[in-house]
């Protein structure tokens, strides 16, 4: 039977895009950057993810786990969660 709602799902490709968009919109992850910067950006994404997980009381892993993705998919206010 469908298990009582338990969240599990490998991170899909589109989830990676969603994570980036969410962090740009609400956690000031900047969206530009050349290749080198993008690598640094990878570290930045981890930091911003931790900031978001801390805000929502999730386990702070820096990884887009199922619970984190679940929160990111929820409808919400467009105002950022952190100061610009």
């Amino acid at each position: 039977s469908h298990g009582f709602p338990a969240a599990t799902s490998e991170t899909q490709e589109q989830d990676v895009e969603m994570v980036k968009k969410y962090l740009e919109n609400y956690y000031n992850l900047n969206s530009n950057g050349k290749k080198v910067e993008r690598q640094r950006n990878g570290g930045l994404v981890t930091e911003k993810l931790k900031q978001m997980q801390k805000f929502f009381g999730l386990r702070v892993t820096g990884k887009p786990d199922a619970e984190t993705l679940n929160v990111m998919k929820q409808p919400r206010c467009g105002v950022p969660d952190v100061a610009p």
Partner: protein
Amino acid sequence: FVLTPGNPRWENTNLTYRIENYTPDLSRADVDQAIEKAFQLWSNVTPLTFTKVSEGQADIMISFVRGDHRDNSPFDGPGGNLAHAFQPGAGIGGDAHFDDDEWWTSNFQDYNLYRVAAHEFGHSLGLAHSTDIGALMYPSYTFSGDVQLSQDDIDGIQAIYGPSQNPTQPVGPQTPEVCDSKLTFDAITTIRGEVMFFKDRFYMRTNPLYPEVELNFISVFWPQLPNGLQAAYEVADRDEVRFFKGNKYWAVKGQDVLRGYPRDIYRSFGFPRTVKSIDAAVSEEDTGKTYFFVANKCWRYDEYKQSMDAGYPKMIAEDFPGIGNKVDAVFQKGGFFYFFHGRRQYKFDPKTKRILTLLKANSWFNC
């Protein structure tokens, strides 16, 4: 709560607002009422007043727009970003924009305009997002049937504008703190192998794969259930959970509330009309006997015969010696009963009728 960085506020506390245009999803009267009620929540707890104007520039301009609406914060179509508002200040300051690619409602369905407007006006007045899931200023949309400022919201807005002149200061509901040693529960039940704890508008559950205790609104799973449930138990072999409040009860299967509920406890279980509500309930899986706890007595109901057993009610102490004469909540796990009263929890062996351990009520939360 969090104040907007720089602590922007309105120096003049008598503010005006204007609804520049209307969504086609609701009548104008419904929109007017949702907006007015949303402002009222904030004026009830502060010296702020809000006056609706129909033309010209108001402090807070309200509009329904979609996509890129030239404020450097484009909307994103249905879902996702529902609305936004700007901090206090001249021009666009204080203005609130609602994404008209959403479906705006005045009921349970997504998305309730009153609920979203109440949140956005918090930004218009100088509040940022709160980390308290029970606060209106929490970033994600939740609708638990009633729209009210939590104590966190009240504390935040009064930090900016001070209290209202009301002789009695309104207070708001507090969100349970799972590791608060004073935490007590309204009801607890197993559900498909998990244990769910209920308090006010919230459920709490632990997940073996995830150390953090999950706390969210009961309405996330069962929007039709009332807040402040009083008892709950699972009939595992029917994959059914029953929730009690007053003399009514609801039955759910997973996330679905079964049709034809709520029903009353008198006709369904045979309680006398002197019983006005149930304090706690638990069903023994291997015997099909369900125990109901009402004040200092307990009743036993046979799930197979679907009738109360003779010889009941009894004093709780007869069947469950040592657990006291009042039960807040109880559930069964691994053949033991876990009784909760106030901050205490008793692990009880129904076979030997003995208390095995005395625990703190929130011992399941790994604090």
